[in-house]
């Protein structure tokens, strides 16, 4: 469906309101967190700096504001389903920020993030199409049960993959901004190529782009705010939900390939879900030169960060730049997938 002038204005609103919400309210919220003693040590600085954490609740409210605008503008349940999944993931993340959940508890609880999403299908059966569209090859046959099982599995996998990318200054905000931009590109191409595609699906992606862009201002090196698990898990759950409602699952998987490889490396080398605070060997260490070094212990988990640092020690800013380069490559590949899938 081609957007008109009014639609374009509504798109802009669902991007700008969450962006301004985060940018304008973040300083006040950070001061509140610092006053109430909610600060975390930035352990990759010497001496460790105190940073306001968790700002996840503010990011969540920003995303809710954007999705409500998308709902009011286009009247579809898609934005509400997206925010439903994000709410459950945010609540689980907030519980982890406040009480620390176990390494296996979090992924199990995150299965619940699919519940509001699947429940919304009862009210709007076309919330998602139960098939996958591949580049050049076409679309698989629709199968509601199998696809819904994949949807339920997608939430913990993607939310955890995002959470595992939240280790260094600016990493999670920059990664989410890049990946959600690639997702937006795919959804826009889908909307252009499919006349029956609801614009609410495009509008629902914009709050994630807006919130992550606003958060990047405060989270980039040197960080003044950390999102906590409440922010990272919410970002992941929103991304999963938007990929499903936008029908761009394959392009979305490719866009977050660095996060998927990172969680796959971590899980395979740590042999299962281990809370990062309880890992026997750390993947990296801060050297006397103030730079980050890869651990040379063979038993250290092979996180993506360790793999980058195996080429040589790096300052935190350069290390995150390296992760961004890997993400940009993945997003370009994702863009190619979107073009091959939707441009005929």
């Amino acid at each position, binding site marked *: 469906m081609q957007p008109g002038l009014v639609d374009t204005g509504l798109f802009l609103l669902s991007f700008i309101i969450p962006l301004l919400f985060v940018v304008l309210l973040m300083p006040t919220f950070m001061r509140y967190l610092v006053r109430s003693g909610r600060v975390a040590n930035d352990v990759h600085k010497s001496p460790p700096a105190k940073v306001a954490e968790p700002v996840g609740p503010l990011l969540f409210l920003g995303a809710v504001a954007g999705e409500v605008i998308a709902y009011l503008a286009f009247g579809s349940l898609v934005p509400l389903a997206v925010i439903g999944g994000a709410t459950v993931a945010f609540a689980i993340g907030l519980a982890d920020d406040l009480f620390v959940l176990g390494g296996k508890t979090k992924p199990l609880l995150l299965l619940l993030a699919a519940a509001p999403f699947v429940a919304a299908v009862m009210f709007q059966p076309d919330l998602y199409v139960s098939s996958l569209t*591949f*580049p050049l*090859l*076409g679309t*698989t046959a629709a199968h509601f049960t199998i696809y819904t099982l994949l949807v339920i599995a997608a939430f913990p996998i993607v939310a955890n993959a995002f959470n595992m990318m939240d280790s260094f200054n600016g990493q999670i905000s920059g990664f989410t901004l890049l990946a959600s931009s690639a997702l937006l590109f795919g959804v826009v191409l889908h909307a252009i190529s499919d006349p029956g595609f609801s614009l609410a699906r495009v509008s629902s992606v914009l709050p994630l782009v807006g919130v992550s862009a606003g958060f990047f201002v405060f989270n980039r090196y040197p960080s003044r705010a950390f999102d906590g698990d409440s922010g990272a898990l919410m970002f992941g759950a929103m991304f999963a939900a938007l990929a499903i409602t936008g029908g761009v699952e*394959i392009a979305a*998987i*490719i866009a977050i*390939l*660095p996060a998927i*490889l990172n969680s*796959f*490396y971590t899980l*395979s080398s740590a042999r299962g879900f281990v809370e990062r605070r309880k890992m026997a060997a750390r993947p990296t260490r801060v050297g006397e030169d103030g730079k980050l070094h*890869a651990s*040379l212990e*063979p038993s250290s988990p*092979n996180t*993506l960060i360790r*793999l*980058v640092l*195996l*080429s*040589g020690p*790096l300052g935190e800013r*350069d290390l995150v*730049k*390296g992760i961004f*380069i*890997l993400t940009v*490559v*993945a997003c370009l*590949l994702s863009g190619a997938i979107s073009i091959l899938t939707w441009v005929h």
Partner: protein
Amino acid sequence: MKLVPLIGIEVAAFLLIIGETYLFFAAVVPLGPVPHGLTEYTAIALVKVGLTFGLGVLWLVVMVSLTRLYVRSKLKTLTPTSSS
């Protein structure tokens, strides 16, 4: 910062996903004629599930092998030897 090997692994992961998708559509989906009985239907379904699972395992094996190769080659150059 030398990211070329890691970009190579990323591109390999991407190409494998695309290649395996093609294999899935070309070889797994069209498998078997229209079944005449429950036994044949179940057998074909199980073969399809098995082959799809196999494609997933192949992706994991290739990714683990590439990563191990990268880590080993890097550790060899970084770990100080006893003579040094």
